[in-house]
C-alpha cells in the first residue's frame, strides 16, 4: 500500500474503531450490538454446549459399553440421553449457525453490520438464558427425560409429573425466540444490506445458503413453538390437546414436532453445505462449478424438506397413500443434494486441490455425509423403515448426516477462517492428528452401530441383556466414542494454541476472492472503512488492490458521517445502492427486554402465573421503549454516499429493512396460525372421542360485530397510511384512534367466546382449541390496539411524516394481518359447530 493510502487507512481506523466497538466501561459489554462480538459470543457459547453434549454422549457410551451395566439407573439415563439430544440440537447446532451467520453475513455481503443489531443482542441473551435454564435443570437432576422429541402422552402430566418436561418446553421456547429473531434479521439483511453492485447473481454462494436457511427457520420453528405452548398449557391447566380420552390426540404432537423437526435437520445441513461450497473452490483454486445449479438446488431442497416430516412417523398407523407421499418426497430430496455433491466433485476435478487441513475435514465430510445420505435413502423406503425405526440403525444414520453434514464442515470452517478471527494460522500442530482421531473414532462408533440396530437393539435403552449379539458392537462403539472424544479435545487444544501462538499471516493467506477477506486481520470492529462496489462474485480476484482502496476510504460511505454507525442498503435484486441504513449505538435495551421475557418463562415454570402476566406487560413496555428509539424526528436531507451519489437514510425510504422485518415477522406469524388451524382440523377429523359433549352456543350477532370491528380496524389503519401520505395530520390521528377503538372491540368480541360462550377448555380438546384460537386472535388485536396508540404518540412527537412513514405503514400491515387472521378465527369458531352438527 502506498504511504498516502496507509496514512488514510490509519486515520479512518482511529475514527471508526471506537465508534463500532462495544463501550469500554465496566458493564459496557452488556450493551454490545456489534455483530462480530455477538457472533463470537454465540459461537463460543455453542461450542461450550457442544462439549457438555459430548460429555453426556460419553456417559451414554460408558453405560452401553457392556451388558447389564449399573453405572446409571434408568431415570438418570433418560435425563442423559434426552439432554444429549436437546443440547446438541437446540443449544449447539442452531446457535452455532446463528453465530456463524451473524459473524459472516455482513463481511460476505460487504456491509458493516446486519439489519437489526439490537435484535442480534436480544437473541443472544434469550439463547444464553434458555440454555442456562436447561443446564441448571441437569445439574439439579430435574432435566427433561422423555427423549429430545418429548412424545406425548409420556411427556404429559400423568406420566411425567415433575417439572422436567416443563423445563424443556419453556427453556427451548425461550431459545427459539432467539432463532426466530435471527431468522427475521437474516432474511432482511441478505435482501437489503449488501454493498453496492452486489446483485443477487453476484452474492457469495454462502449468502444464498444462509438466506435459504433463514427462510426455513422462519417457517420451520412456529410449529414447534405452537406445540410447546399447547403441551405446556396441557400440563399446567389441563387443556387436553394430546389426551385421547378427551378428544386430544398424541399424534398431533408428533405432527407438530416433526413439521419443525425435519426442516430442522436441513436447517443444520444447509450452512454446512454452504461452508463446503465456499471452502472447496478456494482450495481447488478455481471458482465453484455450477453456481446457478446450486442456487436452484438449495431453494428446491428448502421447499421439499417441508414435505418429509411424516417419515419420522411411518410406524404410527397411517394410511398407505399418506406413507407413499412422504416416502416419495423423502426420495425426491436426494436430487438437489446430488446436484450439490456432483458440483463439488466437478469443482475438485477441474481444479487443483491439495489436502490442507481444512480440506481434510471436507474430505471427511464427503465420506461421512454421503454415507449418511445413503442410509437416509434406505430408511425412506417404508418397509425397511418398519424394521429399523427406533433402533440404533437410525441413531447411526442421524449421526452420520448431522456430524458429517454439519460438524465436519464447521471444523473445516474454523480452520479456514481462523485468520479472520485471530490473524494467525499454522499448519503445524495437532490438527492432522486430531482430525484422524475424530474421523476414525466417529466411524468406529457409528459404522458398526448400523449393525447393532439391525440386530434389534432399540433406541433409548439404558442397558441390554447378554446373548443378543449386542455386546461386541456396543463395546466397539464405546471405544470409538472415547477415541473421538480425545480427538475433539485435541481439536480444541489445537485451535486454542493456534489462537495464541501461531504466527501472524498476511491478510488473505488462501487468496480467496470473496469480501470477507478484504479487510485487515484480525478483523476490525467496523469491517470496512468504506464499502465496495462489486462487479462479480470474486471481487478480490478482480481487483487485488480492493482491500487497500477500501481501507483508504475510496468506496461508499467512507468513515463516519456523524457520531452514528451506518451501512449501505441496496435494491434486493439488482444491488443498486438505494438507502443508507442507520445503525443503532450500543444499548442495554436488548438485555433489559430479554430478562423479563426469561422471567415470564421462569414464573410459569414455577407455577407463579401472576408473575408471568406482570412480566409479560414489562416485556411489552420494554419493547415499546425500544421501538421508540428508532426513526428520526425530522425529514432528513440526502447524504453523500460516495461515488457521486446521495442517498436518504432508511427511515425516509419505502423499502427500509424495518418494513421487510415486519413482512418476515408476519410470515412467521402466519405459519404459526396455519399450524394452529391444522391442529384444530386434525383434532376435529382424526382424534378419537369426537364430537365433544357440547359445542359453542351459537352467537351470530357477536360474530358479526367482531367481524365488523376487525374490518373497521384494518380499514382505519390503512386510511391512516393514506392520510399520512397526504400530510393530513388530524385525519391521520382520527383514523389511528378509530383503529385503536376497533381493536378494543375486536379483542372483546374474540375473548367473549372462551370466557362466556364456549364450554370449559378442560372438558374436551374442542373447547381447548377454541380457547387457543380466540387467545391468538385477541393477542393480535390487542397488539394492534397498542400499536395504533403507539403510532399516535409517535406522530405527536414528530417521528412520522409523509417521507418517514415506516411506523404507520408497519402498523397498518400488522392490523391487516390481525384483521384477516381474526376473521378466519371468527368464521372457524362460529361456523364449525354448524358443520359438526350436520
Amino acid at each position: 500500500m502506498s504511504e498516502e493510502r496507509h496514512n488514510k487507512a490509519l486515520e479512518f481506523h482511529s475514527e471508526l474503531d471506537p465508534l463500532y466497538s462495544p463501550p469500554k466501561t465496566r458493564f459496557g459489554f452488556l450493551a454490545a450490538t456489534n455483530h462480530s462480538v455477538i457472533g463470537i459470543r454465540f459461537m463460543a457459547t455453542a461450542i461450550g454446549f457442544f462439549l457438555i453434549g459430548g460429555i453426556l454422549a460419553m456417559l451414554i457410551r460408558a453405560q452401553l459399553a457392556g451388558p447389564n451395566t449399573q453405572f446409571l439407573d434408568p431415570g438418570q439415563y433418560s435425563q442423559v440421553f434426552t439432554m444429549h439430544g436437546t443440547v446438541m440440537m437446540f443449544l449447539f447446532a442452531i446457535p452455532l449457525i446463528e453465530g456463524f451467520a451473524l459473524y459472516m453475513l455482513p463481511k460476505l455481503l460487504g456491509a458493516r453490520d446486519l439489519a437489526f443489531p439490537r435484535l442480534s443482542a436480544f437473541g443472544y441473551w434469550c439463547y444464553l438464558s434458555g440454555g442456562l435454564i436447561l443446564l441448571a435443570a441437569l445439574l439439579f437432576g430435574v432435566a427433561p427425560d422423555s427423549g429430545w422429541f418429548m412424545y406425548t402422552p409420556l411427556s404429559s402430566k400423568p406420566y411425567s409429573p415433575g417439572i422436567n418436561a416443563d423445563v424443556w418446553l419453556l427453556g427451548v421456547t425461550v431459545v427459539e425466540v432467539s432463532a426466530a429473531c435471527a431468522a427475521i434479521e437474516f432474511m432482511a439483511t441478505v435482501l437489503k444490506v449488501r454493498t453496492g453492485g452486489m446483485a443477487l447473481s453476484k452474492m457469495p454462494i454462502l449468502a444464498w445458503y444462509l438466506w435459504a436457511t433463514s427462510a426455513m427457520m422462519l417457517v420451520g420453528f412456529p410449529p414447534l413453538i405452537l406445540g410447546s405452548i399447547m403441551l405446556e398449557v396441557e400440563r399446567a391447566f389441563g387443556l387436553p390437546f394430546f389426551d385421547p380420552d378427551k378428544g386430544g390426540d398424541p399424534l398431533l404432537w408428533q405432527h407438530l414436532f416433526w413439521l419443525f423437526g425435519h426442516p430442522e435437520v436441513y436447517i443444520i445441513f444447509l450452512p454446512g453445505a454452504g461452508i463446503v461450497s465456499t471452502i472447496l473452490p478456494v482450495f481447488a483454486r478455481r471458482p465453484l462449478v455450477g453456481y446457478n445449479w446450486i442456487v436452484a438446488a438449495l431453494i428446491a431442497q428448502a421447499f421439499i424438506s417441508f414435505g418429509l416430516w411424516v417419515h419420522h412417523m411411518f410406524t404410527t398407523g397411517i394410511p398407505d397413500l399418506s406413507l407413499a407421499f412422504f416416502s416419495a418426497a423423502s426420495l425426491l430430496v436426494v436430487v438437489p443434494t446430488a446436484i450439490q455433491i456432483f458440483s463439488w466433485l466437478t469443482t475438485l476435478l477441474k481444479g487443483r486441490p491439495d489436502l490442507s487441513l481444512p480440506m481434510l475435514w471436507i474430505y471427511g465430510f464427503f465420506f461421512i455425509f454421503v454415507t449418511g445420505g445413503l442410509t437416509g435413502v434406505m430408511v425412506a423406503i417404508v418397509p425397511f423403515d418398519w424394521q429399523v425405526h427406533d433402533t440404533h440403525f437410525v441413531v447411526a444414520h442421524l449421526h452420520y448426516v448431522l456430524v458429517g453434514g454439519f460438524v465436519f464442515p464447521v471444523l473445516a470452517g474454523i480452520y479456514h477462517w481462523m485468520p479472520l478471527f485471530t490473524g494467525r494460522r499454522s499448519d503445524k500442530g495437532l490438527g492432522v492428528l486430531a482430525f484422524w482421531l475424530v474421523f476414525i473414532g466417529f466411524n468406529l462408533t457409528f459404522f458398526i452401530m448400523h449393525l447393532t440396530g439391525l440386530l434389534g437393539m432399540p433406541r433409548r435403552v439404558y442397558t441390554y441383556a447378554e446373548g443378543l449379539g449386542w455386546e461386541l458392537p456396543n463395546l466397539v462403539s464405546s471405544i470409538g466414542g472415547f477415541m473421538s472424544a480425545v480427538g475433539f479435545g485435541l481439536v480444541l487444544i489445537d485451535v486454542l494454541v493456534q489462537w495464541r501462538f501461531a504466527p501472524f499471516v498476511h491478510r488473505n493467506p488462501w487468496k480467496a476472492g470473496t469480501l470477507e477477506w478484504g479487510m485487515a486481520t484480525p478483523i476490525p470492529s467496523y469491517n470496512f472503512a468504506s464499502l465496495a462496489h462489486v462487479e462479480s462474485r470474486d471481487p478480490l480476484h478482480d481487483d487485488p488492490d480492493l482491500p487497500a482502496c477500501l481501507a483508504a476510504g475510496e468506496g461508499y460511505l467512507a468513515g463516519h458521517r456523524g457520531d452514528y454507525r451506518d451501512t449501505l442498503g441496496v435494491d434486493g435484486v439488482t444491488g443498486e445502492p438505494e438507502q443508507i441504513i442507520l445503525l443503532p449505538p450500543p444499548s442495554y435495551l436488548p438485555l433489559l427486554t430479554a430478562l423479563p421475557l426469561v422471567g415470564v418463562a421462569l414464573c410459569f415454570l414455577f407455577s407463579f402465573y401472576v408473575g408471568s402476566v406482570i412480566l409479560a406487560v414489562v416485556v411489552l413496555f420494554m419493547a415499546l421503549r425500544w421501538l421508540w428509539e428508532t426513526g428520526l424526528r425530522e425529514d432528513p436531507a440526502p447524504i453523500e454516499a460516495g461515488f457521486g451519489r446521495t442517498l436518504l437514510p432508511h427511515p425516509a425510504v419505502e423499502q427500509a429493512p424495518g418494513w421487510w422485518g415486519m413482512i418476515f415477522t408476519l410470515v412467521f406469524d402466519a405459519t404459526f396460525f396455519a399450524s394452529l388451524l391444522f391442529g384444530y382440523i386434525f383434532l376435529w377429523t382424526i382424534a378419537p372421542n369426537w364430537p365433544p359433549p357440547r359445542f359453542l352456543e351459537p352467537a351470530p350477532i357477536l360474530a358479526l360485530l367482531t367481524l365488523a370491528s376487525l374490518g373497521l380496524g384494518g380499514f382505519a389503519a390503512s386510511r391512516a397510511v393514506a392520510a399520512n401520505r397526504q400530510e393530513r395530520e388530524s385525519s391521520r390521528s382520527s383514523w389511528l384512534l378509530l383503529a385503536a377503538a376497533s381493536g378494543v372491540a375486536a379483542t372483546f368480541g374474540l375473548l367473549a367466546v372462551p370466557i362466556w360462550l364456549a364450554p370449559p377448555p378442560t372438558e374436551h380438546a374442542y373447547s381447548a382449541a377454541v380457547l387457543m384460537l380466540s387467545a391468538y386472535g385477541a393477542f393480535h388485536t390487542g397488539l394492534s390496539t397498542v400499536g395504533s396508540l403507539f403510532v399516535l404518540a409517535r406522530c405527536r412527537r414528530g417521528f412520522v411524516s409523509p417521507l418517514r412513514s415506516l411506523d404507520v405503514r408497519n402498523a397498518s400491515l400488522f392490523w391487516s394481518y390481525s384483521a384477516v387472521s381474526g376473521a378466519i378465527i371468527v368464521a372457524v369458531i362460529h361456523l364449525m359447530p354448524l358443520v359438526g352438527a350436520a
Partner: protein
Amino acid sequence: MNGMARQRDAGADTDIPGFVEFCHDLPTHRGRMSCPAKSFAGAIAATLLLGACSGELSTLDPAGPAASRIATLWWVMLGGAFVILLGVMGTAIYALRSAAKERNFSTRKVLIGWGLAFPIATLLALMAVSFLPGELLPRSPEENAIRAQAHQWFWTFDYPGGERTIDVLHVPAGEEFAIAITSEDVIHSFWIPRLGGKIDAVPGKVNHIRLKADRPGRYLATCAEYCGIGHAHMRFEALAHRPEDYAAALTAATDRAAARAPVLEQRDAPAALVIEEWGDYLLDWLGIT
C-alpha cells in the same frame, strides 16, 4: 462386506440372496452353521458374518416372509450404497492427483447425467420396489385379530376365544395371523424383528398388523418406543405352534397367566445415588421441594 458375502462355501449357495436364504434356513434362533466350509477364509468370513447376523432380535435372521423380504432388500441396498460411496470417494481422491492432463469435460453433462438422471432413475426404481403390492402388507381389519394392549411395562394379549396371556403371544405357525394393537397409557411399539416390521401402540387408536412365522418356535419381541424407565425391560415373546397344537397351547397358557410379569427391578446404581443426593441437597438449599 460384498466380498465376504461372496465367499465360496461348500454347503450353501453364496450369492447375496443365497446367503440370505442361508441365514433364513437356520432351524433355531440360535443358528449354528450346519454345513462344512471348504475354505478357511470362507469359514471365518461366514462365521463372522453369520455370528454378526444372528440373534434373537435380529432383523437379519428372518423367520417369516415379511422379515425375509426386508432383509433381502437390505442386502441389495447395502450393495448399491457401497458402490455409490466408493464412486464418490474414489472421484474425490482421484481429483487430488495433480492435474497431469486438463480435465476438459462438460460440466453441464455431468450435472445433468449424474446430478439429475442417475439419482432420479435410481430413486424411481426404489420407489417402485417399495410400493409394489406385497411390500406393504394388506392390513384390513380382521375379526379374528388377537388384541394386544401395551402397558407400562408389559403386554397383555386377548384372543378371539376369550383367553388372555401376559408377555407371551401364542400364534399359529405357517399361517398369517392378525394383531390389533393399542395402548393403555403412553405410546409403545409392537415389534417381533424376526417376523416383520413394527407398529406403534398408540392410546386412543387401534393399529393392525399381519405377520407370519414360517416355522414353529420362539421369537423374541420387544417394545420399540421409549415409554419410561421400564422400556429396556419391556420384552415379550411370540410362540408359534403348529396349527394342530395351537388351541391346546392357548388353553394351557391361560391357566398359567395368573401372575403378572414383574415390573422393573429397582437397582442401586452408585453414580445415580450420588447425583440424586446432591440434587436433593441443592434443591433443599434453594427451598424448592
